[in-house]
């Protein structure tokens, strides 16, 4: 009885203070709300770290087991495309960070511009990835879908492909183990590309919302947390690039 009286009296004092429309009632103030959202975003990103971490560990172990085959297979990747893609992705991370800054400074046109640039750079990354995937399909280097040992053991069997790439033939057991490398290559870059596609879709949505002025009225949580996601995807690529493209390049 007495408890409910206390609650009934306490509620009006707290409930009807002036506050921004976006502040949910279960939060004390906007700073607490933003902190809670940021904390939750980081927890989500940590599950993503574990997910990609498992793939990186698998890569590490198989690379130790089939080292020569992994060296040979990694030479099949084009460093120029890989470097270009890294630059594109880092630039998109930069434009995204600038977008968060614009949202915080309430610069609407700046935010829209940054989001569009990030969107375009993200598509550019996927475009370059498509060129690389297309080459792998042409060369029959896609495990489980389009894979031929012959293309490794006897590259001259397909004169058109040989004319373009001049691959040297591999021994049969080594050729078989390159399949492990390419499986990991496609799973890792494929999962990374899927994250990019999801990110680009959300970016498209955000561009429309930003044009309507949704993020430049003080409530920047969505832009900020999307920024965290986009930078995380960038970090995954920062590790994928040296591990898949570069690590055995000198041999």
């Amino acid at each position, binding site marked *: 009885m007495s408890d409910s009286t206390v609650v009934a009296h306490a509620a009006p004092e707290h409930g009807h203070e002036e506050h921004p429309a976006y502040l949910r009632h279960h939060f004390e103030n906007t700073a607490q709300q933003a902190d809670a959202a940021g904390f939750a975003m980081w927890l989500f990103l*940590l599950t993503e770290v574990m997910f990609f971490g498992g793939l990186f*560990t698998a890569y590490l172990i198989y690379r130790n087991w089939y080292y020569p085959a992994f060296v040979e297979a990694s030479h099949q990747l084009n460093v120029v495309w890989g470097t270009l893609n890294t630059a594109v992705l*880092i630039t998109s991370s*930069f434009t995204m960070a600038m977008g968060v800054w614009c949202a915080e400074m309430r610069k609407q046109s700046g935010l829209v511009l940054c989001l569009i640039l990030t969107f375009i750079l993200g598509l550019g990354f996927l475009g370059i990835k498509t060129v690389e995937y297309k080459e792998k399909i042409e060369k029959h280097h896609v495990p489980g879908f389009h894979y031929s040992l012959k293309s490794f053991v006897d590259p001259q069997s397909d004169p058109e492909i040989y004319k373009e790439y001049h691959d040297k033939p591999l021994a049969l057991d080594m050729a078989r183990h390159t399949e492990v490398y390419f499986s990991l290559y496609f799973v890792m870059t494929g999962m990374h590309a899927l994250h990019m596609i999801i990110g680009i879709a959300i970016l498209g949505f955000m561009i429309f919302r930003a044009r309507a002025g949704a993020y430049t009225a003080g409530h920047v949580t969505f832009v900020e947390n999307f920024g965290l996601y986009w930078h995380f995807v960038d970090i995954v690529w920062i590790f994928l690039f*040296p591990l898949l493209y570069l690590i055995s390049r000198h041999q």
Partner: protein
Amino acid sequence: MTDQREMEESQHHVVSPLIYIIVGSSLLVLTGVTVWASFQEWGNFNAVAALAIAVVKAMIVVLFFMHVKYSSKLTKLTVFCGLFTFLTLVGMTLADYISRAWGSW
């Protein structure tokens, strides 16, 4: 006093564009360095160098682009705990693979 300090800590810090420009260009430079390093003949240190540069790049992204340097203690602790758990899991997995008697059965 404590309230005031808490207020200051939760005050939203806006990172200036200048820092973003510095961070973005240093990431591009480090990308160039890692490509250059991969063509050098350093034996086992090629892998070490590649991973070291990647870790530095990732740290720069986490600290500045992802604002962890300017975040609350809760965020810092969350990130640290996550990375610690991740490294522990990878370390234990690798320890298992290294310490088995491969080939003797």
